[in-house]
């Protein structure tokens, strides 16, 4: 920490924050209060926070500050109260790409703690809403040194701005029997393959991936990512009828009816004696029966992913929910991964060529229509992409329009004329 104010401890004045010391939930305030004895700048932070509590007002302003070679990853903050709290004059956050699935060795965590403490205020957050590890409280030089130290130790910094953002995924096959693909491997693969786009904002706006091993969506992908990638399977689910019988013996037939059969969204479960009958053709892989009867039921063996597109929260056109783009593709072999990478590049190219400034891909699709989008990225329409066909009767049938309205044929086919060569759909 290079701030000279460091040496002089500031007395804490936090009557309101002190009220966050009571109660059973662990208090970040008590922790930081104790830590401020070791790191005096933390006392300045808490005193400013106390003023925010008193005045219901915020004193942080953003600025731009980047590590050499990077266009994002440091979230620079300047305090409006720097005269009073000189240690907060520059008090930046460094985003660090988390290990996929948020798994850690203590060696790695200690390394992060030491790096954060050595170069800044020593405050860590596990994790930010985009999945990153957040290290708080660096001045300009401290943040640059922190980034260098992190990268010497094998870490890399996260995304910010109009870039691919840091990915996040569920624990996946490392500890979950329901994971239909290797979410950690896919997260690392996509991060590493596209790392240039994460560090150098050059898209029209941000683009997030979140990866979940099954439809339970523990990485919250469908509303929080531009491209949710969710595990699924083709063909029949696995049923262990002995365990089904055990389930009925233990829980009772009534429980099975009330909590499993009648909860199936496509009513594809029934019971004969103590045997579960599954109409696999109509199963939509919602995961409910497997969640309830996880000793007896499991996803099928021919596994892969469903790729969705366009989830994001409310700004600017209101919420968009991810919707099906590729109903099924395998994600196991090197060729599968190459196909996914190639597909993503095509989606990005069309969006970045045609999207407006600050337009998330879900907003872009809302503006141009999913039909046009599919044409643009070279994906055939599939009835599994929709809830129901259109109800609006005003349609521009390109094939049926008189020639004089078609306009001149363009010589170079735009990107949307490309074939969807390697994307496998079920």
């Amino acid at each position, binding site marked *: 920490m290079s701030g000279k104010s460091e040496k002089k401890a500031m007395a804490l004045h936090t009557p309101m924050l002190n*009220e*966050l010391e009571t*109660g*059973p939930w*662990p208090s*970040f305030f008590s*922790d*930081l209060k104790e830590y401020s004895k*070791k790191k005096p700048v933390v006392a300045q932070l808490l005193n400013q*926070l106390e003023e*925010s*509590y008193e005045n*219901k007002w*915020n004193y942080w*302003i*953003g600025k731009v500050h980047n590590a*050499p070679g*990077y266009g994002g990853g440091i979230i620079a*903050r300047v305090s409006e109260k720097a005269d009073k709290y000189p240690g907060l004059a520059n008090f930046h956050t460094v985003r660090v*790409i988390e*290990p996929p699935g948020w*798994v*850690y060795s203590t060696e790695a965590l200690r390394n992060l*703690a030491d790096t*954060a403490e050595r170069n800044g205020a*020593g405050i*860590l*957050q*596990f*994790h930010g*809403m985009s999945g990153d590890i957040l290290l708080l409280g660096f001045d300009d*030089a401290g943040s640059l*040194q922190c980034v*260098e130290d992190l*990268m*010497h130790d094998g870490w*890399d910094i996260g995304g910010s701005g109009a870039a691919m953002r840091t990915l996040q995924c*569920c624990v996946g*096959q*490392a*500890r979950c029997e329901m*994971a239909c693909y290797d979410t950690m491997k896919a*997260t690392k693969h996509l991060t590493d393959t596209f790392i240039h786009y994460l560090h150098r904002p050059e898209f029209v706006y941000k683009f997030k991936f979140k990866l979940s091993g099954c439809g*339970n969506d*523990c990485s919250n992908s*469908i*509303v929080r990512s531009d491209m949710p990638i*969710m595990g699924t399977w083709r063909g029949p689910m696995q049923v262990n009828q002995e365990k089904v019988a055990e389930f009925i013996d233990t829980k009772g037939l009534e429980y099975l009816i009330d*909590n499993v059969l009648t909860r199936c*969204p496509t009513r594809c479960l029934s019971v004969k004696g103590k045997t579960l009958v599954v109409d696999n053709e109509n199963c*939509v892989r*919602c*995961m*409910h029966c497997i969640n309830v009867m*996880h000793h007896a039921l*499991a996803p099928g063996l021919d596994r892969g992913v469903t790729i969705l597109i366009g989830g994001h*929260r*409310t*700004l600017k056109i209101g919420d968009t929910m991810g919707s099906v783009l590729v109903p099924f593709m395998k994600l196991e072999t090197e060729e599968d991964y190459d196909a996914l990478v190639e597909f993503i590049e095509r989606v990005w190219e069309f969006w970045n060529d045609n999207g407006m400034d*600050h337009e998330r891909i879900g907003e872009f699709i809302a503006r141009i229509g999913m039909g046009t989008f599919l044409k643009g990225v070279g994906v055939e329409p599939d009835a599994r992409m929709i809830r129901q066909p259109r109800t609006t009767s005003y349609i521009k049938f390109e094939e049926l329009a008189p020639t004089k309205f078609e306009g001149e044929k363009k010589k170079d086919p735009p990107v949307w004329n490309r074939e969807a060569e390697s994307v496998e759909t079920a």
Partner: protein
Amino acid sequence: MSDKPMAPRDQGAPDYNKYLHPLMAKNYGEWVSHDRLRPGVLVHTAKSGDKLYTVRAGSPRTMSADTVRKVCDIADKFCEGYLRFTARSNIEFLLGDKGQLDGLIQAVEGDLGWPLGGTGPSVSNVSHTQGWLHCNLPGSDAAGSVKALMDDLIDEFKNETLPNRVHISSSCCQINCASHGDIAIIVQHHHPPRINHANMQICELPKVVAICPAAAIRPAVVNGYESVEVVHEKCMYCGACHGQCPSMEIRDSETDTLSIWVGGKVSNARSAPTFMKLAVWGLPNNPPRWPEISEAVRRILAAYKEGAKPWERVGEWIDRIGWQRFFEKTGFPFTRYHIDDGPEALSNLNRSAMVRL
């Protein structure tokens, strides 16, 4: 900067293989089932017969380097040096030896002071944003309000007595970084931005104009400054312009309020994922402990606990009983502001004669 050569760039995501508990590494992709031994304790069984115990506890998300070291001491003593975090900032200590379970629980609850729970049908840790601690846009705090709320909901975190899991999120502005939840808390602004015309040169005016979802901002010269004006009738107080341009201040400590939204769900289980819907508005932004928020959340939880069937999430419960009953059972008033006038306005009306009478 030191004299050392620049560190390597673009290294990508850390190699997770180095950070897997040995039993995770050994049984990767070979897990067959799991059980909950008690709230906060899971056991996963692999094809090999190996069992991996997980002790889940609520973390404060924000922690000092010294607290991180305390966490590491526990993981070194019991977990062979491995642990993980969940998407909702719970910590998970991973344990191979069941004989050590009691010792580990004692260390987490006793030494660290973090409560076990957040498993199964319980209130999990709150997804939250940065707030006054470190964000440039917040109208409220996050870490503090979450601490106060979870103090109040501690029994629902430590026990598995709800119909299904409840995910709560808390956001400090309308960008809503904490996103959807079964129950979600958001700040609400109540008037157009106040424009500092003399300081608009720090912003890119075309971007400020373009970002407005209501097309309410247009370029204007005001008092000789190149600036913008806001058409008040069109402005919906979202604050998108404030994120783009700090000279368009949207927050107001006198008039900002909080609202609570219900029925968001990302899981596909049983029913398709849903957005959250407005439940109650106009709650005061009341630091340091936001008691009105705790009271409202408790009311929703109590009605849900009493009325929902097992496995129903908050939104599914309301879908079954209808919004009229939701407002009756929680006692929140239903007002004209609950009726949507956004992009989903017409499809959110009851377009049928199906009415509970």
